């Protein structure tokens, strides 16, 4: 998209600027002073405070799936709770569809939570004393929707998430994956603009987790909500996220598409994270194209620069001649069989050439287009 870091300030669904959350005594005093620059251990040693979120800023486009990824303790769950002030931030600006969340009165905030933003939790947070249908209808119930109306809506949503026929069951009669479908249905039932997911699948078995990830992808296609998805699982982040923010010790280290993170990690931490990602599955030809060597034949197959390396394999199999990589209708370089093999074997792009045609900002830019 337009700006260098891939965000679009105009018409963002969620925009966060300079967000801080400091737990501990006299947190606001830490913020203004020099202590704010201390590392986590030094800060705790000196003030007894823990900075869970440090000066975080990002913007999420309407309809985008934005993934925040980090190890446990990196502050990602605190961050997502700050968005609707389930945890009160210490400082910063949050706007959701143009509304200033931090300035909202308690009743405005409730309205926001009731109609515009809803959340799916790691441990589901279902109410064991209520039937599934009443769990799903809970959000509508607190809004004051009459019983018949909210039940009708709840049943619609239940069939959307594939739980037809379970409306009268109790949550504890369902498996973990089904319980999380109920949690998902509860969040969808109020028809919010934004869905927040706090590690929703990390309590599930791997196979069920894969199903649920597919479910989220499907739902996103069908209902097209803006989603903020918290996870500690890189493969989940890569699978779901249009853009991914990597958090460490409360700060965002890098924001970008999967391709950008893998191809151009911002620092060793991110590089370490993405080391095991199969590069051939994530990177496109843009990352391995090179200037044609003198005497190389330039009549091979033509592929666009955005083609994933793996998908270029058939073309490379068919023809021994180097593939010509084209961007915006113009040739920008070539890729031969060796380049593809090296990339798929996980080696960094051997010649490490910047793209032939100088595009502003290097490989990190324009990858999402």
């Amino acid at each position: 998209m337009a700006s260098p870091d891939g965000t679009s300030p105009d018409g963002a669904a969620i925009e966060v600027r300079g967000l801080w959350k400091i737990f501990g005594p006299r947190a606001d005093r830490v913020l203004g002073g020099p202590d704010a620059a201390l590392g986590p251990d030094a800060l705790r040693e000196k003030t007894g405070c823990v900075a869970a979120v440090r000066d975080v800023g990002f913007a999420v486009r309407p309809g985008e799936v934005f993934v925040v990824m980090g190890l446990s303790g990196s502050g990602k769950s605190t961050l997502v709770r700050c968005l609707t002030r389930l945890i009160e931030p210490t400082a910063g600006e949050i706007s959701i569809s143009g509304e200033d969340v931090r300035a909202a009165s308690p009743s405005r905030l409730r309205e926001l939570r009731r109609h515009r933003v809803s959340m799916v939790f790691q441990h589901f947070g279902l109410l064991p004393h209520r039937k599934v249908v009443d769990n799903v209808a809970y959000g509508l119930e607190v809004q004051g929707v009459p019983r018949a109306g909210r039940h009708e809506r709840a049943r619609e949503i239940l069939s959307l998430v594939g739980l037809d026929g379970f409306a009268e069951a109790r949550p504890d009669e369902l498996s973990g994956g089904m319980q999380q479908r109920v949690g998902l249905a509860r969040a969808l039932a109020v028809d919010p603009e934004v869905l927040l997911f706090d590690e929703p699948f990390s309590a599930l078995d791997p196979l069920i987790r894969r199903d649920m990830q597919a479910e989220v992808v499907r739902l996103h296609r069908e209902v097209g909500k803006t989603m903020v998805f918290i996870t500690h699982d890189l493969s989940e982040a890569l699978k779901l996220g249009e853009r991914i923010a990597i958090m460490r010790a409360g700060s965002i280290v890098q924001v970008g598409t999967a391709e950008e993170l893998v191809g151009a990690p911002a620092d060793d931490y991110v590089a370490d994270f993405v080391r095991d990602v199969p590069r051939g599955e994530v990177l496109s030809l843009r990352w391995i194209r090179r200037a044609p060597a003198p005497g190389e034949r330039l009549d091979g197959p033509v592929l666009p620069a955005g083609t994933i390396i793996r998908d270029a394999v058939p073309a490379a199999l068919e023809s021994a001649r180097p593939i010509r990589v084209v961007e915006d209708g113009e040739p920008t370089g070539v890729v031969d069989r060796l380049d593809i093999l090296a990339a798929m074997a996980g080696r960094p792009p051997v010649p490490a050439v910047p793209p032939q045609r100088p595009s502003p900002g290097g490989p990190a830019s324009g990858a999402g287009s």
Partner: protein
Amino acid sequence: MTSHAPPAPPVQASPPPLPRRAVRLPPWAPLLAGAAAATAAYLAFRGTATLPHDPEAAPFRIIGDVRAWADANRNQSPVFLFFVNYVRLFVGGLYDVLLTVLTAPGWAGLSGIATGIGLLAGGWRTGLLTALGFGSFGVLGVWEASVTTLALVLTAVLLSLAAGLPLGILAGHSARLRRLLDPVLDVMQIMPTFAYLAPMVLFFQIGPASAAVATMIYSVPPAIRITALAIRQVSPSAVEASVSLGATRGQTLRKVELPMARATIGLAVNQTIMMALSMVVIAALIAAPGLGSDIIRGLTRADVGVMLPAGLAIVVMAIVLDRVTSSAAARPPYGAARPGKARALSASRLRWLCAAAVALGGPALGRALPEEFPAGLVLRLAGPVNEAVDAVTFSWYDLTEAVRNLTTEALLNPLQTVLTSAPWWLVAAVVLAVAWRTGGPRPAAVAVGCLLATALIGLWQHTMETLTTVLVAVALTLLAGVLLGIAAARSPRFAAVQRPLLDAAQTMPAFVYLLPALALFGATRFTAVFASVIYAVPPVIRLVEDGVRNVSPAAVEAALSCGSTGWQLLWKVRLPMARRAILLAANQGIVMTLAMVVVGGLVGAGGLGYDVVSGFSQRADFGMGFAAGVATVLLGIMLDRITQGAGARPSPRTTTGKKRIA
């Protein structure tokens, strides 16, 4: 043998020079030295600096004057006019209303309604139990007294819940309020029952209102504590989910927290009722009507025949109320319907119908039946029971006499002589040393402060007498409790036999334990010891059993795989790992024993308990009785600090602030 020579030198060579080797003392040396020093000091200073009892001590006179002032100003002072008297009027009125409501349907009617409630709460078994229970009140000839007691219990419980549930909910939400309430509730829970009574008399005079307030104060701590616990146990992610959907605080409380905490709050209600029931009996000392007055009358006259029907009725009432409330609390949060939904629905409807039929049928039948419980059905127990008691005491005389004399001569008398003839500063120094060693400086300071305060209020000697009885009873309680607890933990069969007995024992109000003790041993100090041992042993057994059994299975498995024998496993693994539980059991045992020993003042235990009782019966002794109540509290706090410190010491308190930075 040949291999002996080589390994020796390296071992000797390795440690650096150790000049201090001679100084290293075994860990028990300071203990031994302390004991020796205390003994020497006792022998040297015996008989000096004792504080003999003086019935005319200044603190007693001052308290007597305060009461005289209160009585004189009951209708003038604004404190009384605008607050105390209104409370008295309101509580008295509530009691009258409840009593009228309970009396109105007649015996058949009330039994019917109660049975209906039992049916609804716990099915036909509980319903039947309720019906039999209420029937037995009539058969025992104590119908009216039982209804009066029930009304008083209900009054106190309603007041307790009205205060305790909201406070508990607030405390569940606010850590600050919890920190504020905790020490207060701690003290309230270790206060022996007697201590509540005298201040009530001062403010509310004697009678049902005053008894209801005393009972309410006694029974409110579990209502607050368990409710707060219930609220805190609610899954935080369910609460968060509710808030994230825009629920107001009230909506989250009503729709999420209360329903999810229901079972535990039911337990709070159950505990409150059980506490109230046991207190209502003791409140008979300040003229609470009902079963308690029969029991007190029987106790003071050592007349088992008078007590027995009332005592049995109390036990039956305790069991019925316990079953009804605990099964109501334990019911699943929704109809127990899994496969056949329609059938279960109709079953629950059927149960409602039955309950309604019984509840309505009772009063309807009551019109046809005589208003009084038919005299022909009443068992006259007093005569035969007294004969039986006489026969038992006669035939077992040798045994009971031997047990009693042995304990009295071998334990009680020598210990009492030592404690009362030792100088006060020596006793204080020993308490300081022991508390310091078990709990550290702060508990030690509190313990010594409490001990010295008993001297200040003029009750040193009686406190020492009570302390004697408590120490002997505690020693016996712990001995019996630990042995039985270990036995139960080792043998599931033994545990299975013992468990229902313990359950029954823990439902019974404290006073009931005096009954068999009195029947067997007459009115002596040993009677109080015996009663407090059987009163305090069940929880000790249970705590020890759970502690020994809940030792990490991994550790047990590891020990077994090293080839430990059963006894090695017990001594080297289970007991050391169950240390906390055993110390907690000691703490519980001591607090309960103290409560019972004080009550034992009614059956010849003397000491503080007797002072309290005589404070209620003789106006001139009111000051002493009041002070004795305070002294029991001080003694309780002292013993609690000493033992609680020991339990808390091994692991530094882990305050895990719930921070979420995941």
